[in-house]
């Protein structure tokens, strides 16, 4: 109204167009404080996001001047290559040697890769020769087939070298046991390759969510799976076939068996050991317990039994006695359909945790039980993300029966690993050699997991529930 009254005045006096009065200034800048408010809100938002990220990363250790470590790779197959690529991203590692019996193929590939990175590396067919010739090795990374792990690990330890040995620690418990003893006798470090033990998301889940915040409440059931698509047997370029006498010397009957060793009794353990041991290791860890019993069903239902002696399909159920009471844990692995991938799912009376090493699928979700105390504090601290609002339309409209509980809020575990999956575990090993960290998966843990997992195959054969004697886990 005042505006309208002013107008005639403005137009009547000619120079008025140029004069700005106080009112013009005030009204001209009337909305400027909004920008201040916007800036303030933005700063709060940025701080919040930063806090979330910082919480996700954990406290960064101050990196002291690191000693350079001399490293050799023993077994340069698929996994050897994965580990090599992860190690190439770790500073202060000097590669000295690679050993692999497939000299014309895998050995060459690894040596060439390292030469590209300007490492002077020697290639060996026989690990004994490598240990004899390579002086001053600090660590050997072992990624040979499971049935070689015990011999390789023990000889390296006895040669005075620290060892990172891939899981499965060994295909036999005697093998695994002798590895623990060798580590104790030699005083050298032995890290078993259950790399989730060093994964920041898993550590966050255990240390922060389960232990500190106790967001799960009392965990009663667990389930997990690894679904893998059907795949043909691994082949090899015919001209690079290893001579039969060499194969025989190293325990393989044929090139086919050499390539597909995981399916053969006496060499590997089949998918339950290959895949399951990663995840069942997490059951033991997160439940803070060892199982009391296991029952299992499995068989070679899809592939050729002659070339797949171990079971392509396995379902197992464990009974745990946790510090809080009994918990039951189911695990399934199958190799004929890859949908829904792999994850572990822990269910407590206050929350549910779905976690996976995969960044692609189920990487880390928490569901809040509606009856549980609120998680606002944990959201604020960045232990979990703010709950995702379930959008209407995402779910078809359904009428809930009064007896049904509404679906719980979904939170994310806000920890993402932007590195190769094995890098943190290798770093932990190297830092343990330097004396700045403790091993995340010492042989005792690898052994416990081997005891837990290898019994599944026994239970399938026995067709009944098998008990664990608590002493079985001790050495």
């Amino acid at each position, binding site marked *: 109204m005042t505006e309208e009254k002013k107008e005639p005045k403005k137009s009547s006096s000619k120079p008025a167009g*140029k004069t*700005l009065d106080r009112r013009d200034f005030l009204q*001209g800048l*009337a*909305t400027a404080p*909004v*920008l201040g408010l916007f800036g303030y809100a*933005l700063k709060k938002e940025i701080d919040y996001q930063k806090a979330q990220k910082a919480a996700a990363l954990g406290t960064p250790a101050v990196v002291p001047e690191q000693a350079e470590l001399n490293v050799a790779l023993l077994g340069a197959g698929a996994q050897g290559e994965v580990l090599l690529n992860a190690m190439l991203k770790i500073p202060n590692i000097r590669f000295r040697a690679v050993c692999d019996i497939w000299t014309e193929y895998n050995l060459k590939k690894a040596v060439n890769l390292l030469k590209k990175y300007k490492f002077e590396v020697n290639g060996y067919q026989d690990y004994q020769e490598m240990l004899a010739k390579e002086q001053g090795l600090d660590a050997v990374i072992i990624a040979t087939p499971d049935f070689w792990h015990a011999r390789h690990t023990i000889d390296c330890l006895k040669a005075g070298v620290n060892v990172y040995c891939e899981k499965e620690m060994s295909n036999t418990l005697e093998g695994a046991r002798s590895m623990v003893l060798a580590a104790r006798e030699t005083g050298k470090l032995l890290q078993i390759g259950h790399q989730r033990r060093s994964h920041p998301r898993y550590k966050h889940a255990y240390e922060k969510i389960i232990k500190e915040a106790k967001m799960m409440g009392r965990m009663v059931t667990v389930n997990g799976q690894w679904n893998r698509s059907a795949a043909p047997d691994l082949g090899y370029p015919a001209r690079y076939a290893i001579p039969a006498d060499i194969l025989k010397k190293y325990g393989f009957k044929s090139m086919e068996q050499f390539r597909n060793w995981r399916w053969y009794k006496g060499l590997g353990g089949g998918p339950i050991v290959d895949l399951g041991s990663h995840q069942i290791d997490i059951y033991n860890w997160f439940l803070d317990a060892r199982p009391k019993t296991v029952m299992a069903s499995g068989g070679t239902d899809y592939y050729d039994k002659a070339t797949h002696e171990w079971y392509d399909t396995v379902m197992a159920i464990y009974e745990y006695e946790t510090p809080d009471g009994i918990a039951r844990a189911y695990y399934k692995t199958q190799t004929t359909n890859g949908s829904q991938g792999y994850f572990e799912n822990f269910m407590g009376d206050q929350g549910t945790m779905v976690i996976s090493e995969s960044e692609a699928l189920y990487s880390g979700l928490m569901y809040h039980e509606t009856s549980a105390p609120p998680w606002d504090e944990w959201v604020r601290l960045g232990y979990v993300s703010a709950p995702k*609002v379930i959008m209407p*339309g995402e779910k078809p409209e359904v009428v809930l029966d009064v007896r049904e509980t509404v679906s719980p809020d979904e939170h994310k575990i806000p920890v993402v690993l932007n590195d190769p999956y094995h890098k943190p575990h290798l770093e932990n090993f190297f830092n343990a050699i330097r004396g700045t960290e403790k091993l995340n998966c010492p042989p005792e843990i690898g052994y416990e997991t081997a005891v837990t997992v290898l019994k599944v195959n026994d239970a399938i054969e026995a067709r009944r529930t098998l008990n664990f004697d608590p002493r079985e886990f001790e050495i």
Partner: protein
Amino acid sequence: MNENKFGRLQMIALVIMRVMIGWHFLYEGVAKFMKPGWSAAGYLSQSKGIFSPIFEWITNNPDILAIVNQMNIWGLIAIGLGLIMGCFTRIAAVAGMLLILLYYVCNPLFVGFYYSIPMEGNYMIVNKNLVELAALFVITVTSTGQFAGLDRILHKLFCKK
């Protein structure tokens, strides 16, 4: 010159609406700016309807896409600032309408056309984008910048009359 025939309270209401739309634009721009590697590609690639070939073409041309991304981010920020401050209000409002129109035609809500990017809420043809567009139309045709905004000062300084 000043064609608004609105009372003071009505003008204040319009300014509040303008500032809020500006806030929304500004934060949409700033948030995209802060997200490392943000790209319109995700939204564009889901484009449906008659214009989708154009958006598809944009997504498939990394150079064009980069330009579109930058234009979108800075366009949003500039429009947001303009609306909040009431500075070149009319230009900002028209630009805002065009931008929203682009978003809308990228994923129009035709009847019977139920696939679209998951959105919160339920819509039939009209969605929040269109409502914001209509609100900007109101801003365009009312000179709120000359009531409360830098336009008032600019107008006095630079307009003869």
